[in-house]
């Protein structure tokens, strides 16, 4: 039974601050790049990938998913997976009608 985790990792203040700066930086980046028209789907791909990196930063450090039990990663991972299944299969209908 999972009791070997009797200790708990404390995320140091320095890492929190670095993550904070990275998030602010990425926000500024996404605002700037939104103005340049990269043509085709690239604008949305770039905007989404920036948003995903920001989300991953928050997940791993602010929410200390990095140091949590593996089951928590499985939980949030499966939530995102079934979301993609939902979008994917609905798209096979809506855009091929």
């Amino acid at each position, binding site marked *: 039974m999972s009791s070997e985790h009797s200790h708990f990792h404390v995320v140091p203040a320095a890492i929190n601050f670095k993550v904070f700066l990275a998030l602010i930086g990425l926000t500024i980046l996404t605002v700037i790049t939104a103005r340049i028209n990269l043509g085709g789907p690239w604008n949305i791909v770039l905007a989404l990938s920036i948003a995903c990196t920001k989300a991953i930063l928050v997940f791993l450090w602010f929410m200390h998913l990095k140091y949590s039990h593996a089951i928590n990663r499985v939980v949030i991972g499966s939530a995102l997976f079934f979301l993609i299944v939902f979008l994917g299969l609905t798209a096979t*209908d809506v855009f091929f*009608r």
Partner: protein
Amino acid sequence: MEVESNYLNHEKGLKSWLCSVDHKRIGILYFIAVMTFFLVGGLFGLLVRLELLTPTRLFMSSDLYNKAMTLHGSVMIFMVIIPGIPAVLGNFVLPLMIGAKDVAFPRLNLLSWYFLMFGATLAVLAIVLGGVDTGWTFYTPYSIRSMEAVTVILFGAFIMGFSSILTGLNFIVTIHQLRAPGMTMMHMPLFGWALYAAAIIQIIATPVLAITLLLLIAERLFGVGIFDASIGGDPILFQHFFWFYSHPAVYIMILPAMGIISEVVSTFSRKTIFGYKAIAFSSVAISAISFFVWGHHLFVSGQSELAGAIFSILTVLVGVPTAIKLFNWVATMYQGSIKLDTPMLYAIAFIGLFLIGGLTGLFLASMATDVQLHDTYFVVAHFHYTMVGGVVMGMFSGMFYWMPKITGKMYNELWGRVSAVLAFLGFNVTFIPQFIMGSQGMPRRYHLYDPKFHAYHLTSTIGSWILGLGIVIAMIVLIKSFKKGSVAPVNPWGGTTLEWTTPSPPPHDNFAQIPTVTSRPYEYN
């Protein structure tokens, strides 16, 4: 003789029940709630069948018939078979079965009961306000234009969704964190695995129902336009949103029932379950694949042919784990020592009826035959075979199996068996004619119908009386066993799972000392 304290006489008074955080008492609270809703839903089912006795109007107007049909569907699904087995038997038995003193979050467990009651009162309010006539599926655009009570029942269903999420959340954490020492996942009884698989679906599917209902409420109040074609929205998108929850939801209903059948068949055949790993993994496989198949509800709704083909193939794949389970249960009986007590009777009824339910699903999974059978009484019979033949029979099998442990008294065995036989016969007389008239083209949700179907409807209505009688007898026998009946032994059926090691009824704290588990659950000799 001093009565030893158990969870029933541990403390007295209504307040001790309504604010109890003991998983056993919450199980009883849910039992009372689910049984009342079952009576209400069943009554409306009988009224609908009575109205269909004659091709023309008998005693209901078309509007009233549509309201009765909608109410039968909504009450039975949201208030009876979704909370039914997990909240009543799961709450009571799971902690005992895995050697825990209580579920992980007792207070959330009580909150989930209040969510159900609050949601149910909203639904009752909707009936009083004029009723809902959209069918339990609330398809747009009709549900957008329908009367104002629909918003109230939508909000009620939204609230009840939280009850389901909290139960699922509680069970996942309980199974992960609170198993007795030595009970690895592969030593956990199969009812635990079934509740775990159902809880996964409750966690992942119910939020999408929540957002679907919110979007529909926003559509009705503010005209958001997403599902309304007049300004570019897409009514078929609502069907995608609705069925992404509602098809996995039918597996929330059936998986716990399958868990009960694994327990009952193994105990009443006094034989280790056949293929423990196969059944455990097929439960989780079902909950995973169930999220890929919802499109078979849209084969003829204007869905693209590509999506139809993909959904058709995925739908038949979800039938494979179910087939594996049916084979394993029958294989368990081989070389067993089978005793046909009431739980076993209901379990065998489950195997027979759910087999037919599953096989008739094949007609609806293949696109060509679905063109002929979609939205006819064939579909009505199919889902009643899985929902009543499956979930309700499984629920009664589980209730008769654990009632001695819950009440501490033995139920009346003779009347238990009578109820099983009556329910089985009545069920078949009610729904086999519906298969036939369905494939002949009799559409679903019809208040007035073509006289050529009269004979089938007549037989079906008579069958519904027998089914109703069987279920009422079963309920009386169960409820009476709270008051009267001989004192139940600690282990009336010779079960090997942990809940049979506690006295019946179990003490407030389940186990004085948490047991250690060494062997797999079903070792008989």
